[in-house]
């Protein structure tokens, strides 16, 4: 590394971080397998009611009222402020499942003055199941199509590395959602899908540069080439992640309750994605034994064979 200006030696700590990444992914998979995701209303079915009162609402009192009304399994939570309450009731057996929301509101309105109904969401169990299947399918489809795209776009080793980085990001984000019991609903799914696009985008930019440098330099040590490529794209990687995070932070603080989980998923995802496009891709390239030969352009071989 004689000619470097102020190169950061990213690859120096690659083994430590590689182990960390593997641990995080395995931990996430275990979490997802054992604890699962805290699925939102869209996927479980049931009823969610949001009410607003002119004064602070006593949550314990509201719980008691609901218990007396026969909603023992209702989950009562503050919703954004102490004057807003969200009540989630699992799918009810028997009569008038779609009218649970109204009944919940009426029983609460009896004990709290000036209570207003802000939102009722009822999702039938059948629809919930369908949405869950559909969403799982969408997630797999997105990953599958990305795989196809990358396969067309890169050689095997690069393809494997970028897709692994993608899986790494998605699994860790889902794992965090599982660990912290953050609600996972359709909007979060949208965020995860957007993350798939973003994460691959990030990795592609780095991978593109690595490839370019392999082809255009006389340097033979892959470590030096990869490190150089990462350093060259570093400002871009960080700047793009930074601007995206800026808008996500704005969404997180001002987007209201609906957008909170969405921005959480993307904030975490982009953080992990930025890291993975620097480390996971390059790390795997070394593990797979990338060398200059992988980038020789085919025409050259033909010329070599000429007499």
């Amino acid at each position: 590394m004689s000619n470097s200006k102020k190169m950061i030696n990213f690859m120096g700590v690659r083994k430590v971080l590689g182990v960390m990444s593997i641990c995080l992914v395995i931990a996430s998979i275990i979490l997802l397998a054992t604890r699962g995701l805290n699925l939102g209303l869209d996927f479980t079915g049931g009823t969610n009611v949001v009410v607003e009162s002119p004064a602070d609402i006593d949550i314990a009192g509201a719980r008691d009222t609901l218990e007396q009304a026969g909603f023992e399994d209702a989950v009562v939570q503050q919703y954004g402020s102490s004057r807003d309450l969200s009540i989630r009731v699992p799918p009810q057996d028997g009569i008038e499942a779609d009218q649970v929301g109204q009944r919940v509101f009426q029983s609460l309105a009896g004990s709290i003055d000036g209570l207003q109904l802000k939102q009722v969401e009822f999702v039938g169990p059948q629809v919930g199941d369908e949405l869950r299947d559909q969403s799982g399918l969408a997630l797999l489809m997105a990953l599958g199509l990305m795989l196809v795209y990358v396969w067309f776009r890169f050689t095997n080793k690069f393809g494997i590395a970028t897709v692994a980085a993608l899986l790494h990001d998605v699994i860790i984000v889902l794992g965090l959602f599982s660990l912290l019991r953050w609600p996972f609903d359709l909007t979060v799914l949208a965020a995860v899908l957007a993350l798939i696009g973003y994460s691959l985008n990030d990795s592609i930019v780095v991978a593109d540069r690595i490839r370019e440098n392999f082809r255009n330099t006389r340097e033979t040590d892959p470590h030096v080439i990869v490190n150089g490529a990462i350093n060259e794209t570093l400002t871009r990687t960080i700047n793009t992640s930074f601007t995206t995070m800026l808008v996500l932070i704005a969404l997180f603080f001002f987007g209201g309750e609906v957008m909170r989980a969405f921005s959480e998923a993307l904030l975490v995802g982009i953080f992990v994605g930025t890291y993975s496009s620097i480390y996971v891709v390059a790390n795997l390239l070394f593990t797979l034994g990338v060398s200059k030969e992988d980038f020789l352009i085919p025409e050259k071989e033909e010329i070599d064979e000429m007499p």
Partner: protein
Amino acid sequence: MTRYPRWKFFLLLAVLLGCGLYALPNIFPDVPAVQISANAAGEEVPASVRRQVAEALDQAGVEHGPGEAVNTSWLVRLDSTNDQLRARQLLSDRLGDDYVVALNLAPTTPQWLRAVGASPMNLGLDLRGGVHFLLQVDMETVIRQRMEAWSGQAKMALRDEGIRYRDVAIDGQKLVATFDDQVAADAARAPLRTALPEFTLNQAEESPRLTLTLNASTLEELQDYAVEQNRTALNNRVNELGVAEAVVQRQGADRIVVQLPGVQDAAQARRILGRTATLEFRLVADQYSAQRAATGIAPPGTEIFPFRDQNNRPVILEKSKIATGDQVTNAQMGFDQQSGSPQVNVELDSTGARSMQRVTSKNVGNPMAVLFIETKTEMKTVEGENGERRQVPESTTDRYVINVATIQDTLGSRFRITGLDSPAEASELALLLRAGSLAAPVTIVEERTIGPSLGRENIEAGLKSMVLGMALVLVFMLVWYKVFGIFANIALLGNLVIIVGVMSLIPGATLTLPGIAGIVLTVGMAVDANVLIYERIREELRNGRRPREAIDEGYNRAFTTILDANITTMIVAVILFSAGTGSVQGFAVTLFIGILSSMFTAIIGTRAMVEMTYGRGARAPSKLSI
């Protein structure tokens, strides 16, 4: 030195101006309004009624605009939501049953903009408030009912041919006809084949039995028809509710989406949508005594029903119907002139009227009953074969007599139904009769109600995060890339104009809260293209290239990477659109449009600005502010 092609400037200018023009209507805020439409579909609101509206509002001292015709309805703009509520009450009292008065928002788009077809974006229910229902049509009931009719047809065909049969039973989508002997079974083949072309007759079996299987195409047609008829009936009911800009659409094979913007009383909407109520007019079999009725065993050719107003006293009715609810062409709530009790004035179509006339002319002095049939569908939990619990819709039908009256005279196409509890019940019955009955019971499988205050909060939250996020990005780009940052920022603003313009141009596109998030996200990601280009230019400058070359290199070499990177997000947006529902689709739409427009503005837009600043003049720039 390559000169930047001139057509790109023009393209840029044209796109920006075009989108800007179509984005413009979104700046003008909507004002509250009431929308008056005639009850009979397709009829215009006459000038006399329009005058009446203005007079009524003037008298009550409600400030109002001059009013304008929108399609067939009449829209009157008002100053505030308070005035709006007052005006609706006032006008619906004044105009009565013939007109529907609905709350609406009127766009204030100036005439010259409307002339070019520009209108504001559609806002999703999560931004404007309202109710969203997903209704499932109960296909099993549809098929069962139709199978019963077909089984009747089969029996009739056999009777007509004088073929003795034991039974024609229904087995799912099959009819099984059993006979005493093989001879009868063989003889039945031909008449059954002609009577029921919708079925496939199965080959001979050992026992004297014939199996008819419903054709797949007929089944499909039947389901299609049932959903379509339900959609029409629901559409009529929604119109009756007087909701402006309501949506009633089929979704998938057996579902219907109903969206009612601005509706706050979800309970009422649900009651009207989910109910299947119809009427039957039948003769009372009064040759039988009350004791006979009390036994609960109906004499042949009759049926026993409870009489609701008389402690559910059993009444014996003839099985044959004189007329049914689907023959009703019009029904209006009214009041009896003597007693003042509520009634429904009914008009029948020609078939119904003929039948009514024929039967009543022969039965003057005999009693006739009005049978009310209401189907409710509820979710019941059942235990599956493997012990798993699942919920299935189960329909229950209530049939009761609401009115028994002596036929005074031959009835024709117009008559009235009395014996109703309250004016509310009368008007609801009139509504259900008018709007037509549903072909099949429906269950609400999804409901989302968003209160108007939440809608407003969501808009505010969306706008606030967009403005703030954008401001942060603008500041960052300016500080980091200086003059080139200004180019990127102008491109970003142009990008926003294009997104809003395109969203307003596409008639089906709807802006939802996740949709706003999509725009915010593209704002963050849009600068990526510029970051890529600028970093490349800086690098080329560091490598000792001259500014002109560095610019060319930067744009050229970053292009493939930008394209590459954005394609992945576009693929994701397409998947999201196809897999998601409502609000998530809104996210997919803005994301897709945003990425396309950001590539356009970030590559062509900033390049044009760079060329204008550094490309003009004879001398190449010696230094770039980047």
